[in-house]
């Protein structure tokens, strides 16, 4: 009974006196597990697995972005590769021009690129936010299947544009000869890079937690569950959803910039609809609208891809089976299966 009272007591909630739920411990376990695995792999000298952990962290981050739109906002974007890829190209193009000492995009007054991750991230957040604003503004005029199709169409436009723009490698993609830099740390060190990715992942998780707990999150939840109720209360659902879409795009974009640096390469595959689909699969696998669902989903997805993909080239058949099982029997995804129903206060 005391636990129940604490739950509904604002002061106790604010002071963090609420007994932690099972979901909380699973969240902690997921993070500790990922970090632990990366460190273990590093001390065993398994560089491949350190990079695999980085890959998981980065893809999870992109999925955290998508989860904000899809899971919490109910906007099924089939075009988040556009933002991921855009982030990748910002990192790639910036490094390319810094390397060649030519102005960005070949335009005289532009700066000569940069190899500083911090400035690359800033530009990425800016441009992917802008792209999210444009795509979101237009797409949110539609709903349901049309929303899915229009977001896909935008991403495909980006894909074909990148494919046919020879200045940045076209379909061959663009290599990044040296990983971009951060002050004080060596980004070429695998474990260091993993920690950069993991910290950004944790920041984006923490950010979406704050966001969803705030008034904005309450409005977004209602915009998803019952837009008529929200409008009847006097809050227009459209700008609320658009804002969530923009933030979602920014997080996905930043993940893309990291991904390009992880691989020291950015290619059109980052913009392809396959990747948009993978992100959706990851969000559904992990549990739609669960805060740490994207992390659980990314771990499962990348591990299946790596291990099953090593055993059989038809690994996606097994992925399909797992997905089918989740959709049919565990609607809350992996998080729903492990932690039970999500709770609201």
């Amino acid at each position: 009974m005391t636990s129940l009272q604490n739950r509904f007591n604002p002061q106790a909630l604010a002071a963090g006196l609420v007994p932690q739920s099972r979901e909380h411990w699973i969240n902690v376990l997921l993070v500790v597990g990922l970090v632990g695995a990366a460190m273990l792999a590093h001390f065993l000298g398994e560089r491949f697995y350190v990079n695999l952990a980085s890959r998981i962290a980065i893809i999870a981050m992109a999925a955290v972005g998508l989860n904000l739109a899809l899971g919490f906002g109910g906007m099924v974007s089939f075009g988040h590769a556009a933002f991921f890829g855009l982030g990748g190209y910002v990192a790639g193009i910036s490094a390319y021009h810094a390397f060649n000492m030519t102005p960005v995009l070949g335009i005289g007054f532009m700066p000569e690129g940069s190899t500083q991750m911090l400035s690359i991230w800033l530009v990425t957040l800016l441009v992917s936010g802008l792209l999210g604003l444009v795509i979101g503004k237009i797409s949110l005029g539609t709903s349901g299947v049309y929303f899915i199709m229009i977001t896909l169409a935008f991403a495909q436009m980006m894909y074909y544009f990148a494919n046919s723009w020879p200045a940045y490698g076209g379909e061959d993609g663009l290599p990044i000869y040296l990983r971009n830099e951060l002050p004080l740390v060596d980004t070429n060190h695998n474990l260091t890079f993993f920690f950069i990715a993991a910290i950004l992942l944790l920041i984006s998780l923490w950010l979406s937690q704050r966001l969803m707990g705030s008034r904005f999150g309450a409005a977004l939840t209602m915009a998803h569950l019952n837009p008529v109720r929200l409008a009847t209360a006097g809050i227009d659902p459209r700008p609320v959803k658009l804002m969530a879409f923009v933030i979602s795009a920014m997080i996905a974009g930043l993940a893309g910039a990291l991904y390009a640096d992880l691989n020291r390469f950015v290619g059109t595959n980052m913009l392809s609809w396959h990747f948009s689909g993978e992100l959706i699969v990851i969000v559904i696998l992990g549990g739609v609208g669960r805060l740490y669902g994207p992390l659980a989903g990314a771990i499962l997805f990348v591990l299946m891809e790596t291990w099953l993909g090593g055993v059989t080239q038809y690994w996606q058949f097994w992925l399909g089976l797992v997905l089918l099982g989740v959709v049919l029997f565990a609607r809350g995804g992996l998080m729903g299966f492990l932690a039970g129903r999500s709770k609201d206060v």
Partner: protein
Amino acid sequence: MSEPLLQVKQLNKAFGALQATRDVSLDLYPGEIHALIGPNGAGKSTLISQITGNLPPDSGEILLQGEDITGLTVAERAQRGLGRSFQISSLADELSVRRNVMIAVQAIQGSSFRFWKPVSSDASLLEPVATILERLGLSDRAGTLVAELSHGERRLVEMACALALQPRALLLDEPMAGMGSEGTARMVKLLSELKHEVPILLIEHDMDAVFQLADRVSVLVSGGVLAQGTADEIRNHPAVREAYLGEETT
């Protein structure tokens, strides 16, 4: 009488050949309950939808406190003080009662683009919600999911959401439907108290409740106003008795 709070002037709405609203005019004055009655398909809900902005009228205008709101969106009308409840309960089933009412409190504070402070410990949201739930006798259901509520309780939560907006005028679409005698009696009591705070345009099928509550009544038949007057006038109106009340009152 003072100025009408809500005025509907010569409203028309057709769906193809069906004239769902036919030249409807009505006023809602401070302190009154104005009941809208009529047989099924008379266009009562269509009329309400036009007043709230869910449905655009073909012609005519709607004024709230003398201001033309005909061209405004649902959200804009709500911001100007038009509260409503739905015939078919329109709440978020997946959320608790508290959360459903909280969004309305948040709306009148005009603060949905705040990204940081958690609502779960925000007294400026929780306290007004608690006050309203207390008033409607829902305090012990605050943490319950709407999906788990009884029909009557859902109606009350609808009311709570509408009241949380501190509306200037309230449109209630069959608030007593399916509530049972005890629930109805309770709602009648609530509405008769409430009308002194906010005038109510009430659609209701329960004639006992209507004549108990209403100061004035408009009778809607096939989209048009058949009769309009005080409750007593309507009760004794020959055309109304024939067209609508006939079987029930004799």
